[in-house]
């Protein structure tokens, strides 16, 4: 693997290998010293054209735990506000010879373009409403730790699928691992022809109890102004995941940050079925595994260096 641009670019075997590495890194996380020297001397550049706290800090932490040097480049206050094009920015930053560039931006396909303009390995950290492949990987990792295998699992993705890059990557990622995916939400927030992705489409949560996993998406306030929804109250009354709707044996996931009382009721966020904090923890180790895969795996490094266990 040279880049991680889309979850479509990775095979099931790739996913399994990345998850196995992430598991190895997570054992390491139980130790007092969490840092390993796998990427010592390498430079990871975070190129973020959108505000992001979680994803950026997760990548930053992942790179630092692998002993890489990290540079953060965010669009605000930088040359992009002076009208520099994406291409010029990338070529300028590439002159510093980063080994990997983590790209987050509001336009679909931008990471793939960036990959054409630099020799660095590119990781898509979210491109527009298109994809967010590391989110899918960490969700697969989190779920397979719980379920063993995703084969045959029934996963419902609930909410604003239309505007969600997480939904798109996760549909493809979950299916790749053998799960059956259903999307549910108001028709205004489900993309036309989404069935072409091989999902079932529901406009109600009546059958939600049959889900092994309920994956709730974040609902954004501005959707009401754009007339996708009459009101948050109406949305919550029809699509909020609460104790009543969540099946007793269903697991609950959410990419964060949660709007308590909108897509999820207060109680379910913290209930035993919720994997939300496990997802956050998985973020760092899975991103370590991805960085390792792209920058070190081909060089016959051992994922967990010997010196730590010695």
């Amino acid at each position, binding site marked *: 693997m040279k880049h991680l641009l889309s979850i479509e670019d990775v095979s099931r075997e790739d996913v399994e290998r990345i998850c196995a590495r992430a598991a190895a890194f997570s054992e390491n996380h139980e130790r007092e010293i969490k840092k390993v020297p796998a990427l010592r001397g390498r430079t990871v550049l975070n190129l973020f054209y959108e505000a992001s706290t979680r994803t950026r800090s997760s990548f930053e932490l992942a790179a630092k735990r692998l002993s890489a040097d990290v540079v953060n480049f965010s669009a605000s206050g930088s040359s992009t506000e002076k009208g520099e094009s994406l291409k010029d920015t990338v070529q300028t930053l590439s002159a510093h010879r980063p080994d990997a560039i983590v790209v987050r931006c509001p336009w679909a396909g931008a990471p793939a373009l960036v990959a054409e303009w630099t020799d660095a390995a590119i990781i898509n950290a979210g*491109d527009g409403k298109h994809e967010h492949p590391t989110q899918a990987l960490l969700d697969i990792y989190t779920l397979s730790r719980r379920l063993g295998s995703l084969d045959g699992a029934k996963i419902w993705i609930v909410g604003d699928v239309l505007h969600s890059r997480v939904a798109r990557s996760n549909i493809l990622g979950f299916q790749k691992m053998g799960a059956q995916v259903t999307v549910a939400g108001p028709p205004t927030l489900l993309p036309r022809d989404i069935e072409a992705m091989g999902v079932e489409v529901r406009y109600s949560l009546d059958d939600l109890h049959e889900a092994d996993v309920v994956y709730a998406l974040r609902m954004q306030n501005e959707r009401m102004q754009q007339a996708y929804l009459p009101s948050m109250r109406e949305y919550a009354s029809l699509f909020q995941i609460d104790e009543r709707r969540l099946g007793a044996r269903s697991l609950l996931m959410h990419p964060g940050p949660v709007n308590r009382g909108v897509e999820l009721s207060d109680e379910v966020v913290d209930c035993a079925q919720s994997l939300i904090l496990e997802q956050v923890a998985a973020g760092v180790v899975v991103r370590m595994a991805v960085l390792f895969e792209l920058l070190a795996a081909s060089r016959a490094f051992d994922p967990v260096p010997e010196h730590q266990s010695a």
Partner: protein
Amino acid sequence: MTRRKEQLLVRGTAAEADLMITGAHLIDPRAGIDGVFDVVVSDGQLAEIGEPGTLTAGPDAEKIDGSGFHLFPAFVDPHIHLRTPGHEHKEDIETGTRSAAAGGFCAVLAMPNTDPVVDSASVLRSLREAARREARVPVGFLAAITVGLEGQELTAMSELRAAGAAGFTDDGMPVESAGMLRKALQYQQMSGGVLALHEEDPSLSAGGSMNEGAVSAVLGIGGIPSTSESTMVARDAALAGYEGGTVHMQHLSCAESVEAIREAKRLGYNVTTEVSPHHLCFTEEEVRTLDTRMKMNPPLRTEADRQALIAGLIDGTIDCIATDHAPHSAHEKEVPFEQAPMGTTGLESSFAACYTELVRSGLMSIEMLIEKMTCGGAIFGLQIPQMTIGESANLVLVDLEQEWRVGEDGYESRSENCAFGGRMLHGRVLLTVADGAVAYRQRSFALSAAPDLDEAAQ
């Protein structure tokens, strides 16, 4: 007092052609010509057509061996963007008309969405003045329907007509308000000038960069539903019918629009339409790679839409082929798909694309393709190029067997954002004669056809 109406087409000065093309297969469906003949053009006029070996050319005439090639009446494109004034870094009159000549066109009509917009007689006059110096083939200009393309006030349509406007359009933008279009249609009864309409309902298309459907669902890119176009086509056909006006619907893209036009024509409304080579050849599948050359407005649609467009073209619902040649510079297109401007160039690949996709595949005859590529100007009152003895020559010599890669030798256009770029197509334009002057010679053909140097020296 009536003001003298200006000629619709203008072009730069060019030497009148003196040519003899021998042995080419002539096809002109309107003139009923189909066979191998020799052709003599003298002083820019089509002087003679005769059996091979029976004609003699004047001593100064250039002799061109056309054997193995085809000679057609040259094409007319009623919808191109010359980007001048204001966006000369994308295209100007000289490069755009050179591109047209390279595509076998002898006349083109340019759209007014420039900067400034062609919405006043003074802008139109200065543009026509520039074209009299720079245009390689005759070019006409449409003026805006509304001032600044803003949809608020009508332009001085009568004055613009008198100054040479070939018609009116807000192309690039719809006339969003039905009431505004109605007034333009009423005013048209007096001013004349066909209204060419870009059909799009912004309340449906806003935020979209490609067709709404299975591909946009996967890509997470905002979709433009086909109803954004078809509802406006139906609305505007009804308005034209009610007012007795004449409208031309530009760049049809979807099956429902074809159906709406079919119905409008059945009702006897004065409605004409065009379709672009890219909508005839490509579908939304091409957008999967997010190649910005595949981003245009209206967007590439589904295979069912493409088939409906082809069927509409064949049954006459769609009158003509128009490229909507829309140049953009490399740095403007070398951005993420959603940020890229809409448009593809098309003049230089139009014939080869349509010939390959429609004629070689057996969907339509070469005669029908020639008709569809020559009649577009007639909608706006231009003469249809025809092989008529004594008239100014408008001819295109093509090698139907030659397979070539689009863009392999670069483009005559200033821009390279061609949706067909890199594709192998059949049918290469070798020579274009526009209004009696040689406007284009394909480079390798020009070299091979040049008289031997020793011979020339003697």
